């Protein structure tokens, strides 16, 4: 009886403390609201270790960087979030703003926003999952047709859907295979070779999207997507996505 009583008392003391303790996300939000973006960023980065591939944590990290003035790093983290959760309106909005601050566009010129949204309606993994489902469907219907010579039209329809999904997946896979990076320092100089002894041909402001093609020592060979310029930039001036 005494033990039960002691246990009840102990829980009575501990529970309020457990309930009253703010989660890391709550603490980070409070710091963010107070304008302590750097401290909030540290908490979110810690949280990312516990929940990797959480698009919301990437999004919040992007917000902290944005408020700290690092639009390039903000864009990199928004992009990571966008890849994981492309239908989220907040992520799309913030990514668009971060890219626009560097003179970039999320939706390429000449392409309707609706089409872009449709193309990125599903994430890469979701398209992969859909592809598996359609493959399953097609194989099942084809099996029935082979055995029973029935459901021929459904087999053709499922084959068409499978091809469409395969094309979609191929296009998205091509984009996912690009080693994207964002200019993270205020300005990155594009040089004709991997070293400061090579002359700079252009400068790119932070937030610009670049595609990494090669690496040599402390330099990346890149293509600036919006300008089509190819050259070398110092590794410490860009952030890989």
């Amino acid at each position, binding site marked *: 009886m005494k033990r039960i009583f002691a246990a009840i008392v102990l829980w009575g003391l501990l529970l309020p403390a457990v309930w009253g303790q703010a989660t890391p*996300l709550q603490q980070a939000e409070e710091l963010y609201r107070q304008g302590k973006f750097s401290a909030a960023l540290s908490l979110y980065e810690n949280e990312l270790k516990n929940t990797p591939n959480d698009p919301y944590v990437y999004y919040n990290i992007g*917000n902290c960087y944005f408020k700290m003035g690092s639009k390039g790093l903000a864009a990199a983290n928004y992009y990571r979030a966008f890849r994981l959760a492309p239908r989220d309106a907040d992520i799309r909005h913030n990514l668009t703003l971060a890219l626009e601050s560097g003179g970039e566009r999320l939706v390429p010129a000449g392409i309707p926003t609706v089409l872009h949204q449709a193309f990125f309606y*599903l994430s890469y993994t979701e*398209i992969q999952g859909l592809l598996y489902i359609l493959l*399953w469907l097609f194989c099942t219907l084809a099996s029935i047709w082979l055995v029973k010579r029935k459901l021929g039209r459904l087999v053709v329809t499922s084959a068409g859907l499978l091809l469409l999904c395969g094309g979609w997946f191929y296009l998205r896979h091509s984009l996912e295979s690009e080693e994207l990076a964002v200019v993270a320092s205020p300005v990155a100089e594009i040089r004709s070779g991997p070293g400061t002894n090579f002359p700079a041909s252009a400068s790119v402001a932070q937030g610009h999207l670049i595609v990494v093609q090669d690496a040599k020592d402390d330099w990346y060979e890149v293509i600036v997507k919006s300008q089509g310029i190819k050259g070398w930039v110092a590794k410490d001036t860009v952030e890989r996505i």
Partner: protein
Amino acid sequence: MKKVFLSVLFFSLAAAAWAQVSITARVNKTALTLDDELTLSVEINGASGNMMMPSLPSLPAFNVYSREIIQNTLNGKTTTSFRYTLMPRFVGKATIGAIRFTHNGKTYQTDPITVNIYRNAQGVQNAQPAATTAKAVSTGNYDSAVVKKAPQKADPNLPPLERSLANQAYARGDENYFLVAAVSDVNPYVNETVSLAVRFYYNRPFYDAPYQKPSTSDIFMEEAGSSQGTQSIGGVLYRYEEQRYLLTAAAPGKAVIGPATVRYMTGSSPLSALDRLFGGSLVQAEETAQSEPITLQVRALPTDGKPKSFYGAVGDGYTLTAQADRTEVEAGEAVTLTITVKGPGNLKPTADLQLPAIDGFKMYSTQATSGSVPASNGQIRGYKVFKTVLVPVASGIYTLPAVAWSYFNPAEKAYKILKTEPIQLKVSPSTKTGAGIDFGAADPSNGFQTLGKDISYLKTTHAPAPGLLARLSTWQTLNWLMLAVLALSVLFASVGRKSLAQKRAYAAAKSRLKKAQSDEDVADAVSGYLQQKLKISTGSLPLKAIVKALQHRGITPATAEAFLLLWQRLDTARFAPGTPDAQNVQHLAQQALDILKLLEEEAK
């Protein structure tokens, strides 16, 4: 009556005294050295109206360098002072003769003044007590070379520029006119301001001396004022005219400052009133004085540790301040932010400050102005002022962040970063309706106005778990395994279907034979059996080939013979049809069934 007479007498005497004209001359010293200057002051009292200049006597022992006229009128009485600066030319006793002045047809003159000119200060000290009675210590070798001293050295405590100029002058003390030039630092950094001074020394009169400044390449040069002075060189007093410049090299490497040139006329101008008075000589010749070219070795600024806020300033003692013209405004009202950089040298060549975008404010382009003001040490101090207009788009408490500006300190060979203090602005909601600033494209009349753009707020939870589609993609191995199982089952199903068809061939043929109504039905049943069971197409093969195929499948010759007879009969029935006889058909069907049974048993 007596009082009236006394008054008239008093005023008459006073008027006579008032109208009296006098001239006096005096010198500031009667004993001096060759390095000294003598000031001769001539004062005329009581002369008014158009006044003639006093007539100086011939002064062979002096060079007259300047003349100054000062006129004062007090209570209607005019006093005019003429002050001449004389420079002794040689050692000995010199007499300044009577100075004459004519006014209203009457000539006034001063008494002669005698001064003693000594070689050095020691002589002056010895002679000082008996200055008025001193005799000439030299009867006159008037060549300055005779009194030239051994080459001198400048005071080592002088700044490098002044020391270099003085030493160059000492080295050229045997010339009467010469031009020297020096810089404060021959090894400056890019954008570091260096002083250049050009001095024209002379100890004889000259006139009409056009000056050509030094030429430069890859160097920004700006004039920084001129001055005069004297320097004793070998016991001879030289005067000099100095012109200063500020130089800023734009690129590392060698930079050459070309020679400066002065073309001067020796002797005296025939039009000079002073020289007419002094009985100077006529124009002798045109001469040229030229300074030596100077080579600067300009050093590049180090790239290591160069801050992003470095705009090219090199020097020390810079200050950076930021100021907002007001700190409490309404949304939509303009605030002028002024950032001022001050420091040594010229700030014009430095790049303009790049202000980052400030959240919550519409920013206009930054306007920069620069200039320079003279400093107390003979240098100049530059300044650069950046002004930008900020318009808060919404109410709230905002903090304009600190602005960084860096410079390179050549003495410490390091970059230094200056930062302004953050400025807090209190923005209250706008009270102006209908006249607000429209930051967006929306029509204010519909009650909606875009004030600005900002990122969306944080996500306060973790993202929801991935959906079925996303999870399916993670089961890649399972998916491929399942697909393989499906493919295998399809394969087996397909093969099994064929096997089943084979197994069912006899039953199907038996069923069809039982239902046969004509010889053709019997033939079709047999053909079907051969097709399904033995894969023998009866339509495309001749009878012999069919029999051969049957034998190839292990059919005994007897059975093959029986099949041959059956097929011939069926052919006869098909190609020469008569009236169908149900009994014959049944008989033929039974015969066919018996043969098929044999085929079923014998076929492999």
